């Protein structure tokens, strides 16, 4: 019988967030993987700002591989939406219980365009 009292004795590593940037023509995709919380969201924000500074035609923030999204990360998305120049389209890729669902619950999905997959976001932006 498993001893449940030992569950929290497992090593808990600090949350990590890996952010990558890729270009598809003039569309920049900033993708995050891992945890986007109050500790790691400044890193995502910096990378988004750096991408916007390179004057893309459109910006996509891809949260497909995010395992935890806190309100601090949602604020980064709202700030990105507000700071992106009007002629630069902005989209977020998020789906499922840890990203898509909470973004809808608190109305972030009413402010920014959220797509369930990167392909759908790119198709919309290329149209």
């Amino acid at each position: 019988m498993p001893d449940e009292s030992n569950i929290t004795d497992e090593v808990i590593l600090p949350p990590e967030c890996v952010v990558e940037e890729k270009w598809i023509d003039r569309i920049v995709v900033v993708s995050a993987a891992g945890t986007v919380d109050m500790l790691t969201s400044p890193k995502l924000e910096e990378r988004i700002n750096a991408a916007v500074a390179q004057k893309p035609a459109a910006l996509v923030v891809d949260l497909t591989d995010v395992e935890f999204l806190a309100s601090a990360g949602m604020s980064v998305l709202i700030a990105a939406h507000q700071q992106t120049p009007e002629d630069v389209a902005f989209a977020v890729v998020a789906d499922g219980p840890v990203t898509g669902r909470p973004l809808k619950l608190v109305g972030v999905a009413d402010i920014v365009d959220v797509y369930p997959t990167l392909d759908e976001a790119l198709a919309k932006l290329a149209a």
Partner: protein
Amino acid sequence: MPAAESRYHSEVADAVSVGRLREEFSRWLRRFGLSADRHADLVLAVNEALANTAEFAYRRHSHPGAVTLTVRCDPATDSLLVTVTDEGVWREPRDDGNPQLRGRGIPLMEALADEVVIDSSATGTTVRMRFDQVSNPSSAMA
């Protein structure tokens, strides 16, 4: 439903300990076998209560103080009771004229929990959240 109470504590309410306490809670919560949606909801709600402590409670202090997370299930009401306690004073996030950027922590907790009560006093703040219907449907059918 497992009858259990667990307590997680950090002497320093900062972003690192928020991550650690959140992960400890998530692991404790696994025993309930909740749906992925429900599990994620509870972890996010608890994170936001912890994050508010780390962000607001000790703003007037030179160093952040302690934060304690207590989780208890109540088999009689089939609910999970979570409290997050600190010894600081929450400062209401200022309205900086940018309502879209205002914190979503408390609205998230209210959307995700069945009840949220925030008690602030001069000696600290306690957030109480109740989550109903947490029994594992598969074990209930057995």
